């Protein structure tokens, strides 16, 4: 019991710290990627290649004046950002990042650590999928209330659009989630991944009797709309609505909406990974060398960085590139250690998959224009919803037929 509490606290602290860092740096990555898509360097001034930009942003947001407009509906105005960030962060508690972790009995000087066995996850609910759906459906209140309580017509329109959009896209999203659940026959996220063990052909997106490719695409599209991202970012369409539902918010209250959006992006990417892409399962078995992939990738990156550092075009790159090269090479070596491979490799594949989906998010933001409002509604009700329904029906029939 005691070790359970200690372990849970340690895990919670680690997950929270990693999540917060990822949130901050996801925004840096987004700005960099968008900048390179648009052929400009992006953040460059704060730290090497703008790497300290998130820190500067945090300091800026904390020290800004926190305005409380006199005409707002105070309790709801203050409640809204709190709701948004809480509901966004709470979902991470049920997401599994890797398999069960074994931690041998260990003696460090006077400190004795007994044998510990713990899942790389804060808590394994047997209704994990439903928990995330519930949290995301409660998150709508944050945005809707922010729009309404601001007492501003742009904010109200943004809030209205957002709630209509989220209600509409939740239906195809739930239907798209239901189909892989039929294949895996569980609601627990951990068992969901365990049912997809093996290779890429056992992932739900390619797994028989009915590959869930359609359902995966529907889920991704609906997820973009649920998180209010381009091309579905009508709630904050800046050329029509100033800034949409958060027009009247400043300082940390604005930051919590911002963080909620990025936290939702991460949650949704984790969901897509767990439901369709096999979670932390490698694309092909370790017997065929999948355990060498991270070493090859990091080693290649390290050598490339060292090479560029040797022939750097700018003066400061002589210093920065070799540092990154050495860090990458050390990482490549760490992945070869058998002691850490059992948990580091699954973690690598999980992060790689989540990262790929997050990159897709950013890529699409740099590529597609925004929907018009009637197009948005017609798209979900007349196309996405029937497609998801048909897919679910076909999956259900095939699963029932195969079970016979």
């Amino acid at each position, binding site marked *: 019991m005691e070790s359970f509490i200690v372990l849970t606290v340690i895990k919670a602290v680690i997950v929270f710290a990693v999540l917060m860092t990822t949130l901050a740096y996801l925004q840096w990555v987004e700005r960099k990627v968008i900048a390179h898509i648009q052929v400009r360097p992006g953040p460059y001034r704060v730290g090497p290649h703008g790497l300290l930009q998130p820190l500067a942003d945090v300091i800026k947001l904390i020290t800004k004046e926190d305005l409380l407009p006199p005409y707002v509906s105070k309790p*709801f105005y203050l409640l809204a950002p709190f709701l948004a960030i809480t509901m966004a962060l709470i979902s991470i508690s049920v997401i599994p990042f890797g398999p069960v972790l074994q931690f041998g009995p260990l003696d460090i000087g006077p400190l004795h650590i007994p044998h510990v066995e713990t899942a790389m996850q804060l808590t394994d*609910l*047997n*209704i994990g999928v*439903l*928990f995330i*759906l*519930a949290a995301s*459906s*409660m998150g*709508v*209140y944050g945005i*809707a*209330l922010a*729009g*309404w309580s601001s007492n501003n017509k742009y904010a*109200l329109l943004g*809030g*209205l659009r957002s*709630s*209509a959009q*989220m*209600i509409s896209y*939740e239906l195809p999203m739930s239907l798209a989630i239901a189909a892989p659940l039929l294949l895996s026959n569980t*609601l627990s996220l951990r068992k969901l991944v365990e049912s997809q063990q093996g290779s890429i052909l056992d992932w739900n997106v390619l797994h028989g009797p009915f590959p869930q490719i359609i359902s995966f695409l529907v889920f991704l599209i609906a997820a973009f709309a649920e998180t209010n991202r381009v091309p579905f970012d009508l709630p904050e369409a800046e050329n029509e609505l100033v800034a949409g539902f958060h027009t009247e918010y400043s300082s940390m209250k604005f930051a919590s909406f911002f963080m909620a959006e990025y936290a939702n992006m991460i949650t949704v990417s984790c969901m897509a990974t767990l439901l369709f892409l096999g979670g932390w399962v490698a694309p092909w078995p370790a017997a065929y060398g999948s355990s060498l992939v991270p070493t090859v990738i990091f080693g290649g990156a390290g050598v490339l960085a060292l090479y560029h550092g040797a022939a750097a075009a700018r003066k400061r790159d002589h210093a920065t590139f070799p540092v990154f090269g050495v860090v990458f090479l050390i990482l490549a070596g760490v992945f070869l250690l058998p002691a850490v491979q059992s948990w580091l490799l699954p973690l690598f594949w999980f992060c790689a998959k989540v990262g790929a989906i997050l990159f897709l998010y950013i890529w699409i933001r740099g590529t597609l224009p925004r929907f018009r409002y009637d197009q948005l509604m017609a798209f979900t009700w007349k196309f996405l919803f029937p497609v998801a329904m048909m897919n679910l029906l076909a999956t259900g029939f095939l699963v029932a037929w195969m079970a016979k």
Partner: protein
Amino acid sequence: MDVILFLVFATIAVVCAINVVVQRHPISSALSLVGVMGSLAVLYLLLGAEFIAAAQVIVYAGAVMVLFVFVIMLLNAGAESKKGRSYMSQFLGVPLLIFLLGLTAFFVQRMFPETTMVKFGGFTGGGAEAIGRALFTTYLLPFEVTSILILIAILGALVLAKRGE
């Protein structure tokens, strides 16, 4: 622990329910209703019915109430003004309420003696599998009838919406 949690969330549920009626602004009332739904979900969870708890949050607190809030915001409903109550409700309201509550408590006491009550966590049919089985075997007829009823309601809403054009 269970009893403390039950008391806390039961109190929240009752306070929110009273707040639904007391509040004058529709948005405040709707949000109090969300509070009621949320605390009911926690009570289900305490009983061990986790699937029903999740469904309660997703369907009622999530979907239905968001729709309510959406409509209230769309119509931009303002705060209601207070009107004078009739003499009958002024004098008979509270006694009648107490009478009703007493009657309900009495019948609950009579019909469900303590031995048949569900204990905290003692309810085992709360998982998704058990509920699915019950819905599609024991309660198949009520389930199908309800779905037809909802279909009729949707058709009715369509007809009403078409008439306005």
